[in-house]
């Protein structure tokens, strides 16, 4: 069953790559969703391995968190876009020390 874990790792790494490489905020958020989803996969796989349903429960929670995250994240993106007229993350430097 290790294949599932390897797949989850690959998908997670792809998500990381997306977060780090893309400039579009929306795509970054999507990459985050990929990472979350890949962790879901790993959880289900592990749960099936062990033979109980706790992993399923976690996945359910995870999906709920993802939904919440998407809602708030998208709302923030809309605001940022409204204010800055761009969604290129390289142009958001107001946190510069």
């Amino acid at each position, binding site marked *: *069953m*290790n*294949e*599932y*874990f*390897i*797949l989850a*790792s*690959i*998908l*997670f*790494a*792809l*998500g*990381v*790559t*997306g977060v*780090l*490489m893309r*400039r*579009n905020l*929306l*795509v970054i958020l*999507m*990459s985050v*969703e*990929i990472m979350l*989803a890949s962790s*879901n*996969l790993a959880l*289900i796989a592990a*749960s*099936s*391995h*062990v*033979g*109980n*349903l*706790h992993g*399923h*429960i976690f996945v*359910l*929670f995870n*999906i*709920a*968190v*993802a*939904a*919440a*995250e*998407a*809602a*708030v994240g*998208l*709302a923030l*993106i*809309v*605001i940022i876009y409204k204010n800055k007229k761009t*969604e*290129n993350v390289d142009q958001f430097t107001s946190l510069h020390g």
Partner: protein
Amino acid sequence: MEHILFYVISGLAIISALSVILNKNPVYSALSLVGFLFVQAILFVLLKAYFIAIVQVLVYTGAIMVLFVYVVMVMKLNEELLPRIRLRPFSLFLAGLFASYLFYIFSKTPTFSHPVLKTGDISEIGELLFSKYVLPFEVISLLLLVAMVGAVVLNRKSKHE
């Protein structure tokens, strides 16, 4: 049979994930994400997690993705596309590090001698959810509420504008 199915499906998953991160146009990215999530649902089915698979399709693909596409539309990004990718050697290296590290960890994880594929029975899940996990369940529902309110408040037109 199952093995072949798994490899095909996982190949599809990787391709769709790659398509998400490589597509120039966010709309295509979003659509690829839909595909990715569908493929993942199939993987869940392979793991006999039927309920989760359905939830995945309903919540993720149905609700979240619609939100994404909707936002993309609102922002009218189609005209001016941002440069797709800036090569960041460090980022690639980091992602590779992550992947190899996770491989390593999983390779060290002891495989179970008698893997029992347990069916994700909906009644059992329900029982667990409302007995042992009732508090997190309630907290999660609260979280969703807060997220909803937060999203609304964030995009509300303020009085001063």
